[in-house]
């Protein structure tokens, strides 16, 4: 047989339905006529001949139906019919439709918005080739506090060794970030430069939008630069002629070879990428390399691309093996982990986003349960219709399909409304999201997200439509038609099912509320977090004097003294301190050996924050001195090596309170691992911020370890902008080329971790509220429906003298049972949720008593109110009317 003939016949039957039906009718009429003629010829009267023919022929319609059925594509045909019925139902019950569509629109809208958000940040491909094959070298696997993988403790020579000895990595590159003064085109500005090896872009597989990137073949090409799109646009006017010109960084000139596209932002916040003349970058442009046993300067970050077919673990083993055998004098050396770049780029927001996505999924689940419930209630009122159709021979499968079609149509309407809502919601999300979220610019609604919404709608429709189908399939014909006749109570099975759905809603709402409650408590705790210093009225900014002139320590020290002197003399500046890094974002973590401790394995030494400060630092930040003295101007290169430790460290290693006068051994930048005398103990400052492991601080005087960048902290009543302007003015008088950046109020900086939590908390709070609302509607629906169904029973009871209280109790019992079951389930679920989100919490135990007491109480109150309304209404049933209504 020919499949095309068949297909053509079926398609024709489907699309040219009218013509096909007409032909069939004609054909059969002719047949009847011919039969009648033959009968007439046999001697019957015209009338009798016709009737005989009709008897002989049999049921015309049945034959037609058999032909239609056999013609196949019947399911499509029936689907069209189901769709027509569904649309009719939807239009005939506007109230019902509106409730369902609104419920679903909210849930699907929220899900679509969060999913777009999630996709933009977590799932959309990074702007380079196969990011899952690019790895970052890290000291610790979970070390997300160091987004740039700072300080793996390797040196330039080590990098060359690594390059040679790790075949499991197809290529490795290294880079370091630093601020540099960019001059050229008549302006001078501070920019963040990524100083990198020439294979950086080829390793990532990233192409320039304009010009070209570096290539490993640029061996003799000298110093080159590639600009970031944003920097090129805003600072250099987006002039394409920049390619081929030179720009100057810290008075070293670089030839611009290209501009990257806007989507390439790696490392984040980089303004330009530069490659020095020699292939392994200097740690700071224009600065002398810091020699470490002849093996070159410190490297910051190493990235690699896995060779084809090599797994992350294999590469990690190989790299660790190579590093162990390196002749590296650096004592901080330890096992190196490789981290997938994709994980790294979103690492610290991933848990929060996954939690949000699960929560919004739960909201959808509640909405689905609610819709299932509504559908069940309505199916109950349609029992008679279904009964009649079953009695007339409709297949159960056919009825199921029709019910499902209806719920899918409703869900699609909800989904369409939801997509509209989500566009608006997404704008809101992007607007209120903290700017620190990576890749925020990539968030948008696209075809993929729309298909997600479509899939979600269909799925919700199918699942929420299953409950009525299940209940219809279980009920038998006789009870269906009978119960419908009595208008009495629904089949107990369906009532149980509805109660079960409501219990589920209550349970989920409870879980969401508990999660929101725990986050709220975390944020409270974080707000109350004390850093150990007084951030009020402290303005701070970073100053970097990167010019060639500051190469020598003496020049750095000269600049430091000049600036300190000028600032201290400024009116309104109460005290001025300097430090290498800022609390909450410490940079250098090194191991120390306190006197009296012996470590067989150097890796066992405690790691501390290595903080380089000026004498007045403690006064400026309000850190109390506990013992001994602060640094003075005489703690300089000529004086004995000194250090100050914090109270936490003093307590731990010098428990008898005799820390002052003891010594610590610490390896410093210039290679010395001299013992330093402890001259003072200060109160412990939580320099790592809330939620981190909390390393102790060891302070060293700037004058003994001068570097050409530091933060200036000014205790003043003057606001940050004015103070910043004053600072700039002071700088200009010393050296006009030195810019300031990162100007901030210390209070803002310390509030940052808490602020970062506000966003997920706000969202989760919104979801939880939505969930509680939906659950309340669900409970209300079930009890109210129960009242309607039992109107007659209530009427009889009241006619027989039942008091209103008894009626209320009757109704409440119906609502309370699923509530109690849901609460129990929800509490169990909440414990699981609380433990699952443990690392999102701060300062709160997962089983926080206030949360676990207050939340169920709130939920119980809301749901009880939802039951109380229909219960109250039940007492107003008029017995006479209730009985007569039958």
């Amino acid at each position, binding site marked *: *047989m*020919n499949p095309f*003939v068949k297909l053509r016949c079926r398609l024709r039957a489907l699309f040219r339905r009218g013509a096909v039906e007409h032909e069939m009718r004609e*054909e059969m009429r*002719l*047949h009847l006529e011919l039969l009648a003629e033959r009968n007439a010829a046999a001697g019957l009267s015209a009338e009798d001949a016709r009737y005989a023919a009709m008897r002989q*022929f049999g049921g015309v319609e049945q034959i037609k139906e058999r032909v239609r059925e056999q013609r196949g594509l019947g399911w499509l045909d029936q689907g069209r019919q189901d769709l027509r019925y569904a649309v009719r139902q939807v239009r005939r019950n506007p109230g019902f439709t509106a409730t369902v569509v609104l419920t679903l629109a909210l849930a699907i809208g929220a899900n679509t918005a969060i999913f777009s958000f999630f996709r933009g940040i977590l799932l959309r491909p990074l702007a380079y080739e196969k990011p899952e094959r690019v790895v970052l070298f890290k000291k610790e696997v979970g070390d997300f506090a160091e987004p740039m993988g700072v300080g793996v403790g390797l040196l330039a020579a080590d990098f060359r060794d690594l390059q040679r000895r790790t075949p499991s990595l197809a290529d490795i590159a290294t880079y370091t970030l630093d601020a540099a003064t960019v001059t050229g085109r008549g302006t001078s500005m501070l920019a963040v430069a990524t100083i990198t090896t020439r294979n950086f872009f080829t390793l990532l597989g990233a192409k320039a939008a304009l010009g070209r990137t570096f290539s490993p073949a640029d061996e003799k090409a000298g110093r080159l630069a590639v600009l970031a799109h944003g920097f090129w646009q805003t600072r250099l006017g987006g002039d394409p002629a920049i390619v081929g010109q030179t720009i100057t960084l810290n008075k070293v000139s670089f030839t611009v070879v290209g501009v990257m596209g806007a989507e390439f932002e790696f490392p984040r916040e980089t303004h330009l990428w530069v490659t020095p003349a020699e292939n392994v970058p200097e740690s700071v442009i224009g600065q002398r390399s810091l020699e470490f046993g002849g093996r070159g300067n410190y490297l910051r970050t190493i990235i690699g691309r896995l060779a084809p077919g090599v797994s992350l673990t294999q590469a990690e083993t190989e790299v660790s093996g190579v590093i162990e055998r390196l002749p590296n004098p650096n004592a901080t050396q330890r096992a190196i982990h490789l981290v997938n770049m994709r994980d790294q780029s979103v690492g610290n927001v991933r848990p929060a986003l996954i939690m949000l996505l699960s929560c919004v999924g739960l909201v959808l689940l509640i909405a689905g349960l609610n819709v299932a419930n509504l559908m069940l209630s309505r199916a109950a009122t349609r029992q008679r219709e279904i009964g009649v159709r079953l009695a007339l021979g409709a297949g159960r499968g056919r009825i199921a399909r029709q019910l499902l079609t209806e719920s899918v149509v409703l869900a699609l309407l909800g989904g369409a409304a939801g997509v509209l809502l989500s566009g608006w919601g997404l704008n809101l999300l992007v607007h209120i999201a903290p700017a620190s979220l990576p890749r925020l610019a990539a968030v948008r609604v696209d075809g993929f997200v729309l298909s997600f919404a479509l899939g979600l709608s269909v799925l919700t429709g199918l699942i929420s439509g299953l409950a009525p189908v299940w209940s219809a399939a279980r009920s038998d014909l006789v009870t269906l038609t009978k119960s419908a006749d009595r208008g009495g109570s629904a089949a107990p099975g369906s009532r149980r099912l509805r109660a079960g759905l409501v219990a589920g809603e209550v349970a989920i709402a409870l879980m969401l509320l508990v999660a929101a409650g725990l986050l709220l408590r975390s944020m409270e705790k974080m707000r109350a977090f004390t850093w150990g210093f007084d951030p009020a009225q402290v303005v701070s900014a970073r100053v970097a004097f990167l010019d060639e002139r500051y190469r020598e320590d003496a020049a750095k020290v000269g600049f430091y003294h000049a600036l300190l002197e000028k600032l201290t003399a400024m009116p309104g500046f109460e005290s001025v301190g300097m430090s290498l890094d800022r609390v909450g974002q410490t940079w250098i973590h090194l191991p120390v050996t306190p006197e009296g401790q012996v470590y067989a394995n150097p890796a066992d030494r405690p790691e501390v924050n290595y903080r380089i400060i000026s004498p007045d630092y403690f006064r400026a930040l309000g850190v109390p001195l506990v013992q001994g003295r602060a640094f003075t101007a005489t703690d300089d290169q000529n004086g004995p090596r000194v250090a100050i430790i914090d109270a936490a460290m003093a307590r731990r290693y010098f428990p008898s309170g005799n820390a002052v006068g003891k010594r610590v051994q610490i390896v410093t930048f210039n290679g010395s691992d001299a013992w330093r005398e402890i001259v003072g103990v200060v109160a412990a400052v939580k320099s790592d911020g809330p939620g981190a492991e909390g390393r102790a601080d060891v302070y060293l005087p700037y004058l003994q370890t001068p570097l050409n960048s530091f933060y200036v902290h000014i205790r003043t009543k003057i606001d940050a902008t004015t103070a910043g302007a004053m600072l700039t003015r002071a700088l200009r008088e010393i050296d006009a080329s030195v810019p300031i950046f990162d100007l901030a109020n210390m209070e803002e900086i310390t509030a940052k971790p808490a602020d970062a939590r506000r966003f997920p908390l706000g969202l989760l709070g919104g979801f939880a509220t939505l969930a509680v609302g939906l659950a309340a509607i669900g409970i209300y629906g079930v009890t109210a429906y129960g009242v309607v169904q039992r109107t007659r029973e209530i009427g009889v009871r009241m006619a027989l003298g039942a008091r209103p209280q008894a009626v209320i109790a009757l109704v409440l019992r119906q609502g309370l049972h699923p509530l109690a079951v849901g609460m129990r389930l929800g509490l169990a679920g909440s414990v699981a949720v609380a433990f699952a989100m443990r690392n999102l919490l701060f300062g709160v135990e997962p089983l926080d008593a206030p949360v676990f007491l207050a939340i169920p109480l709130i939920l119980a109150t809301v749901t009880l109110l939802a039951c109380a309304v229909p219960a109250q209404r039940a007492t107003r049933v008029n017995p006479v009317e209730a009985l007569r209504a039958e």
Partner: protein
Amino acid sequence: MANSKADLLQGTLDLLILKALQHEPMHGFGVAVRIGQMSKDMLTVEQGSLYPAVYRLEEQGWIKAEWGVSENNRKAKFYALTAAGRKQLQAEEQSWAKLSTAINLVLGNA
């Protein structure tokens, strides 16, 4: 798909229809009449089986329909064998012959 005189075996109706159309195109009524004539009224085809079978054969591509004019001057749908239908008829005749021989052998009537 049977009558009181002889039950039609499943699938034999297709064969009968194809056979009835072997020599000339016919409308549905004609097919029914022809089968009756050919079987000396031993077999009558019920309309309830005839039309579904005819539509099925058309879908298989063994017969094709064309509108023509009937003996009483009315528009009628005439069915004609296609080339594929002819081949099918041949095949079905052969397999029927084999089957009936075999059954006769079993029954000891040969």
